[in-house]
């Protein structure tokens, strides 16, 4: 009790801050740090749900198992394609729709509401609905294509390895771009109108005003939204699983699907943890890159 009285004002402040933060720290430790530490530990341990003889320290063996998997490098490639094209498509669609919805026209409020609908649809519902829409036997999309004579025979969009990855990327873009739209729209509304007006007076055309006035003002929000979506998309498991389960014949298998296969199909938790650790490392590097970029933008703006 005596020692408590000796605390300085700053120390008291620090103690109060610590007490206030304690619940969050307990939560973070229990819900994030512990599972994460377990995954990293398991990555270097033989751990198999069925084979009880697989125990003990594994060193880098689990990583070797993953890298020597015949599907690993394809899965890496699919993950990059899935992430880059999804985020790129979402960005372009989001930007175009935001620019359009930022114009004054009749019914703008209704369109602004409607455009958000795909993002509100749960992933499993969106995935399964599109699966049926694209079904080659009774899907409405193939019915329309064949009825209008655009194609002779139905296309198996999700069952043909030539189209499957592109199709799931398209559906992902369809579902996710409204988030970009709303984010860009709110950022655009905070851009002072006189900037654009001044540029127009100086003779800047529509495109010049967009690229020289609007786009630079969206730099900060773009960085945040792209970074978040790169991570969300790269680690996304449920959308691809619902639509193709990584098929046909691994054509849409990404790293998260591979992690799932290791843990829930072949029960090799060690290999699943090794792959998770590798993905975590890549995401951590991306975060460092983002943090530096974000700091630089903040400094530039200051």
């Amino acid at each position: 009790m005596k020692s408590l009285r000796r605390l300085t004002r700053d120390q008291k402040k620090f103690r109060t801050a610590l007490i206030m933060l304690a619940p969050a720290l307990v939560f973070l430790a229990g819900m994030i740090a512990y599972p994460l530490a377990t995954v990293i530990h398991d990555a270097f341990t033989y751990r198999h749900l069925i084979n009880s003889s697989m125990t003990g320290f594994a060193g880098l063996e689990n990583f070797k198992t993953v890298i020597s998997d015949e599907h690993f490098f394809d899965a890496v490639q699919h993950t990059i394609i899935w992430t880059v094209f999804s985020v790129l498509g979402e960005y372009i669609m989001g930007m175009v729709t935001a620019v359009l919805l930022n114009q004054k026209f009749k019914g703008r409020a209704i369109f602004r509401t409607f455009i958000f609908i795909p993002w509100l649809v749960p992933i499993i519902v969106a995935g399964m609905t599109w699966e049926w829409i694209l079904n080659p036997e009774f899907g409405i999309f193939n019915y329309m294509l064949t009825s209008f004579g655009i194609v002779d025979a139905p296309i198996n969009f999700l069952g043909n390895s030539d189209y499957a990855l592109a199709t799931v990327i398209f559906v992902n873009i369809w579902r996710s771009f409204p988030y970009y739209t709303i984010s860009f729209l709110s950022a655009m509304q905070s851009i002072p109108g006189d900037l654009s007006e001044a540029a127009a007076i100086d003779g800047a055309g529509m495109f010049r005003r967009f690229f020289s006035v609007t786009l630079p003002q969206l730099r900060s929000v773009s960085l945040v939204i792209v970074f978040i979506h790169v991570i969300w998309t790269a680690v996304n498991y449920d959308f691809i699983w619902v639509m193709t389960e990584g098929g046909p014949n691994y054509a849409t298998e990404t790293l998260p699907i591979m992690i799932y296969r290791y843990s829930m199909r072949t029960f090799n938790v060690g290999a699943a943890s090794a792959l998770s650790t590798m993905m975590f490392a890549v995401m951590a590097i991306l975060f460092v890159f983002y943090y530096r970029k974000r700091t630089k933008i903040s400094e530039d703006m200051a």
Partner: protein
Amino acid sequence: MKKKVISLMLAAAMVASLTACGSSSSGSDSSGSGDSSGSGDGENVVELWTCWTEGAVTEEESLKQIEAFEEETGITVNQTNFTYDMLHEKILTAAAGGNVPDLIWGLPEYVGEFYNMGILEDLTDRFNEWEDKDALSEAVVNAMTIDGKVVGIPYEMTVRAYLTHADDLTAAGIEAPATWEDLMAQTDYYSNNGKYLSEIAATGVRSAQELIVYLAQYDLEIATAQDDGKYKNTWNDNADELEKATKVFQMYKDLIDNGIIDPNCANYGWEETDENFATGIVSSYVTGNWLAEREESNPDTMADVAVNPIPYPSDGHQATYMECKPLFILADSKNKDGAFQLATAFCSYDWQSAAFADRSPRSDVSTDSKWSKDFQALADTGITFPPVTLGGITQAMQDALAMVLQEGEDPAAAAEWLGNAVNDALAESGELSE
């Protein structure tokens, strides 16, 4: 002082909420798992996970039976319904977390896997004392047994049959194909009738179930029991077996090449194949008698269904997949007695007659419908998966089919690859005979 009080209150609230999360799961373990010695309020509860089709007769009748069971025994049944895939995943995570239900529906494919994981209760003693056990045939009891231990109580048994739309075949002027050769002869069926004669599942667990039937028609096993009690795929050690396995993959390839099935079948799972047959998009398919439920939803297209043996190679013999589904009691269940009571109630004459009349594992329950007697007539040729961990093996079987049907690889290469891949999977799960 005020800040201190508030911060302490916040911390206490958070700790309490976290503790509540923990006690909620352990509480559900004791009450949900139905601690017979009494959860907090002394209730006798059995946590039951099922996989029935919602809205179908099995569900309606089983819910009534559960109500009657609760009244008769005083045991409360907490029932939750899943798809088999969902249940499989949830039970793996639940078992890893040590928070399992008491009684679950399962598939035969889970027997080896769950047993090897050590999550199943040995029911041998209870089973031997069960007065109604003689209603089950030896084949059914064997399907519930692994390493000499009974680990399940059967709740449903089906075999696969070759279902045909009789009107389609009559209009085409053909009989139901009895052999692979009969099937392959129908090269003009699609062009003459505007629909494919048949279909296959090439993805998902159904594809593996179909493949082992065609392999069994040549007396091939995907993994054969060895003297040391472990298993091995022996195709690559035996030229005759490898040749027969090659013929099976060649048959799949020929089905597409000869226009007997839609090339899109290469990506079909059970959802597409059952749906296509029930809606009359395709004229025949090898499937189970659960399609009886589609007579109600698709009365026009299901009225002409005929039940036939699965076509077999003329140098082989008939075989079908026997699916005897077990109710498992989990080793960590806290109410094993209650769970066993409920499991045996599921397998009772009354329950089976009401909810599983066409597909009962009991010898004394059947109906005169084609879905019962025509299917049961095929049971003698029934085969099952070996009791090993099947996750990696069924995936390899799908991959081998994809090699042939999607990548256009040589059937001989696919057969050889599958033999090695099965042994790799067995090695990983520690079940490979050296």
